[in-house]
């Protein structure tokens, strides 16, 4: 067993799953627990949203998060804020210099704008989010500006912006310590038309850990 996957995590591993390439994932994570998303093969964009478990109208707000830290880049220490002005999670550790929260999620519809109508049938993150949401009575209204772990979206002085080659690598990760009970929703991005996945969508690993009694 490769112990380095668990290094730095609280001692009790409650969830340890591989999310297949292109697939969605969702899970309940309790306040105080740590969620680790691990970029197994490097430069895999992981689209991510959070909802307050008790009231899913309270959800991750990129705008509130950017305002709270006066910066668009998510780094170690960044607090992920909700649309009600409450902290949902904190990045307590990450081995990637920064992550993105302005690039949004790909969709079949935006793909036709960005690349052409030949991409309309490509699977996309919005469809992953919708499939997950549909199981809980949520839908398109619940999709808001998301986080893109391991994705690189520079902004130049004249405002030019876009997705370029990522700065992640195999085995790098991000750890979130939850500040409230949340539903975490992931789309393991299936995009093949820009560099966000190195033109090759790959699996990622999701772990949830806490300081509870050891599982043995």
């Amino acid at each position, binding site marked *: 067993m490769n112990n380095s996957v668990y290094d730095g995590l609280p001692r009790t591993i409650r969830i340890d799953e591989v999310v297949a390439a292109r697939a969605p994932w969702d899970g309940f994570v309790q306040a105080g627990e740590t969620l680790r998303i691990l970029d197994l093969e490097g430069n895999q964009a992981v689209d991510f949203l959070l909802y307050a478990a008790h009231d899913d109208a309270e959800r991750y707000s990129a705008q*509130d998060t950017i305002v709270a830290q006066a910066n668009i880049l998510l780094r170690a220490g960044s607090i992920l804020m909700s649309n009600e002005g409450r902290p949902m999670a904190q990045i307590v550790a990450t081995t990637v210099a920064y992550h993105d929260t302005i690039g949004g*999620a790909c969709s079949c519809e*935006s793909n036709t704008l960005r690349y052409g109508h030949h991409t309309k049938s490509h699977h996309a993150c919005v469809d992953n989010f919708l499939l997950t949401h549909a199981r809980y009575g949520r839908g398109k209204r619940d999709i808001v500006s998301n986080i893109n772990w391991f994705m690189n979206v520079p*902004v130049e002085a004249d405002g030019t*912006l876009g*997705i370029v080659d990522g700065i992640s690598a195999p085995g790098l990760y991000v750890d979130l310590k939850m500040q409230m009970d949340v539903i975490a929703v992931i789309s393991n991005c299936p995009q093949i038309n820009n560099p966000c996945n190195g033109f090759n969508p790959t699996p990622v690993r999701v772990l949830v850990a806490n300081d509870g009694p050891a599982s043995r």
Partner: protein
Amino acid sequence: MSTSSTTGLQGARAHARAMAGTRVEAMPTVPAEEAVDLPSGVTAQSMVWEETLGAGGYAAKELGRGGCLRLVDLRGDACVSMLVFNAEHPIERLNVADTMKVQWNAYLQPGRLLLSDMGRPLMSILADDARTHDTFCGPSNEHTPRAYGDCGAWGRHPNARGRLLLGVAKFGLGRKDVHPCINWFKGVRIASDGATVLEGGPFPPGRSVRLRAEMNVIVVLTNCPHVLDRRPTYEATPVRISAWRGPVTAPDDPIRNATPESLRAFLNVEEYFRR
């Protein structure tokens, strides 16, 4: 019977009706054809909306495809938060991330589109002599401590998010429909280290933005201090809203044909209206 006495019904009705004709700065002109500030080149008969929003004000209106919307920062210190929805199916709405990403630029300027989350332009930016706008910071909220006190949406210093909620609620929408918004007239630029830099002015009076509706849209507007505005007093000078009917965007329109992305966006909205 005294007309000033409201102890009885006759007096109460007379008291209410005596207010007719009162004019204040922050009010709509109804009918819009009687606009006090007719934009040049626009006929009175084509006007559909004229309204001035004061500090903390909000308004929401449905506009037809092809119509124009002008916002004027009358005295240089307005901040207009905006949400836009497809009036026919409000599940389709302004997507700020797509607006920036698809058009390869973080800053709104003339010739750019306000994109929906469904690959279609909701509005296009025809003109803009302000050039200080914000796609990153969103509306002010009621939680940020302010020197001027409580920021509940019902009070004297209302927060923009709460006022947006009221605007969407008047169209049957709710908390889940207050999405990331655009702020007009206050700029936020991004430094090389990712830091947000407020361009808060105050600015010279009279700057304006002119938008064209590319779908039938619901527009929700508020005029509240920008979330990064740290001044000790609640400051937002009036904004004039004007809207008028116009023709559907023509195939040779320069904004439509400006980039490969804009062209496909217009192909998508033209396809949407093919029925």
